[in-house]
């Protein structure tokens, strides 16, 4: 990685991810050399530090994926891809992976959509919008261990609040824990509850950074509310959207604590997600090899999705940036 950066000073090497804005700089090797040097000075210490503290342990975990290491006292045995083969043969694993993917997708889409709607409202000059913003964000502040317990008290089959209310209305209580539907439902509700405020906040930060000049320009053009949303707001939000989609997906696919505390993977393992499995492998079965292999597979899948999305969004981003800066220049810069 460092040598990579060192080479960055090479004249007229291939250019990567040149944004529309950058094109306006003279394409001279002198600029690039200077940029490379600054980048190296800034990034090298941070990345080196990061490599030692995060990169190394993570790779260590991955390397374990090629070993069979069962039990703390046994020594690891190199088994090539056995763990990976098992992963795709054993329904316990590939089903958990699949569950992680669709559950993560579901949580991400609901959180982001709800958050976006809320942020549009919060962006209006409302009285007490600071309070709204704070109230919506409060769930994100709380600890998962504590709040999942509250959900459990509310949802307890026997003496829980919701069933008490159902009973008082003359309806039969629901055994939440032995229904896959309700298990998934409450995991999603909890995750959205905890995530929607954060999503709204970051969408809001995005909305507020959309150039008001563009709205004014659109007004002059006589654009309607919907047209403004489609042609000014959404394109302006693109970079933030890239960030928020990727980060939410990453965290949603790693959903684990709420599963552990709310359904414990049940009923019959039907809400078991992959990280839950990884955790069990590592700390209950001392099967660090399987844990490493599962993590690598999961990371590979998320990474592929991310790279595709990132590529797609930055490609379309470039054209927007160019269009936008042209407009801005026209509009008064």
């Amino acid at each position, binding site marked *: 990685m460092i040598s990579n950066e060192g080479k960055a000073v090479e004249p007229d090497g291939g250019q990567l991810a040149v944004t529309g*804005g950058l094109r306006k700089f003279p394409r001279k090797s002198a600029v690039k050399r200077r*940029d490379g040097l600054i980048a190296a000075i800034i990034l090298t210490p941070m990345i080196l530090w990061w490599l030692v503290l995060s990169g*190394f342990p993570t790779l260590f975990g991955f390397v374990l994926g090629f070993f069979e290491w069962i039990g703390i006292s046994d020594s690891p045995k190199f088994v090539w891809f056995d763990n990976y083969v098992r992963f795709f043969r054993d329904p316990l694993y590939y089903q958990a992976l699949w569950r992680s993917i669709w559950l993560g997708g579901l949580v991400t889409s609901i959180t982001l959509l709800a958050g976006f709607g809320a942020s549009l409202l919060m962006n209006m*000059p409302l009285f007490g919008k600071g309070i709204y913003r704070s109230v919506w964000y409060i769930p994100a502040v709380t*600890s998962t261990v504590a709040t999942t317990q509250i959900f459990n008290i509310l949802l307890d089959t026997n003496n829980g609040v919701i069933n008490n209310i159902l009973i008082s209305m003359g309806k039969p209580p629901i055994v939440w824990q032995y229904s896959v539907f309700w298990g998934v439902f409450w995991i999603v509700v909890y995750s959205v509850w905890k995530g929607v405020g954060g999503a709204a906040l970051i969408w809001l930060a995005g909305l*507020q950074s959309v150039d008001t000049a563009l709205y004014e320009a659109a007004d002059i053009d006589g654009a309607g509310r919907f047209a403004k949303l489609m042609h000014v707001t959404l394109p302006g939000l693109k970079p933030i959207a890239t960030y928020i989609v990727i980060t939410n997906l990453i965290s949603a696919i790693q959903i684990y604590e709420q599963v552990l505390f709310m359904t414990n993977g049940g009923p019959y393992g039907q809400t078991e997600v992959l990280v839950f499995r990884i955790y069990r492998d590592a700390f209950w079965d001392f099967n660090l090899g399987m844990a490493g292999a599962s993590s690598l597979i999961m990371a590979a899948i998320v990474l592929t999705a991310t790279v595709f999305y990132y590529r797609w969004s930055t490609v379309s981003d470039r054209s927007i940036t160019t269009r936008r800066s042209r407009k801005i220049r026209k509009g008064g810069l």
Partner: protein
Amino acid sequence: MQEFSKKLAVQFKPKYLFAHLVLFGVGLVLLYPLIFMVTVGFFTEEEFMTTVLGLLPFAKQPTWENFLVLFNGSADAAIQQYFLNSTIRTVYATFWALLTALLAGYVFARLKFRGKEVIFLTLLATQMIPATVALIPTYLQFARWPFAGGNNIFTGGTGILDTWWVYLIGGPSINIMGAFLVKQSMEKVPYELDEAAKVDGAGTLRIIFRILLPLQMPIMAFIAITTALATWNDFITPFFYTSSDHLQTLPAAITRLSSAAASPGTVPNWPLIITLSLGTTLPALLLFFFFQKYIVQGLANTGIKG
């Protein structure tokens, strides 16, 4: 004043009423579990045990006992020490997260060099790995830290485990998610600003801190909030890598108190546990209120229009 009354009048337009209704109504639902927590906090263990829970339980004989535990701690919990540790740790981590995110975000957004995208995506990729997998390797690494805690090169002692270094060592490491966010946000800032500054003879640091940083304040506030809260609430690090009492943070200590209140085979002392967890949340909430006002100042009011 006229501005104010105009603003007030606008609140009663149907569109605004609708916004108020939604934000307030949903907000109340979002807040409900926490209101529930507060009301439970006033119960004694015995009364909670025998109460049939309704939508909001109200104690017949409300007690401050649980809240007092929070402030006084019990004999074995030096709450003030934990609070101090939490605060130092949070401030430190937030400072470094902001600094590295801003600098690295600038590099990835503005500079042109070979391998940029590869480096960036590699860093991003590592965020996709469940933290569980690095837990044990990190423990080993801390235990084998060279020349620390009685270690010769790698062995002999306990490394930096159970020392303040556990909290401090991660500081200067790059904050990848933060850098990502800053990068995304900075890419929208027109280059003309940089160029104009350069013409005036500004160096890189000046451009970053004087020209670009003010425009990134909402984003920086967001990073500060999320980092501070994550650090404040993190109990894995103190729990896993330290043991000594003087190194515990508030959440770690409270987890300990809670587990003492839930011994095997008994019904946990919910009122106490719930009050304690509310207690850790409170400072985090204050933190949020402090930072959130920076988000209000969007780019619109910071003069980007040029």
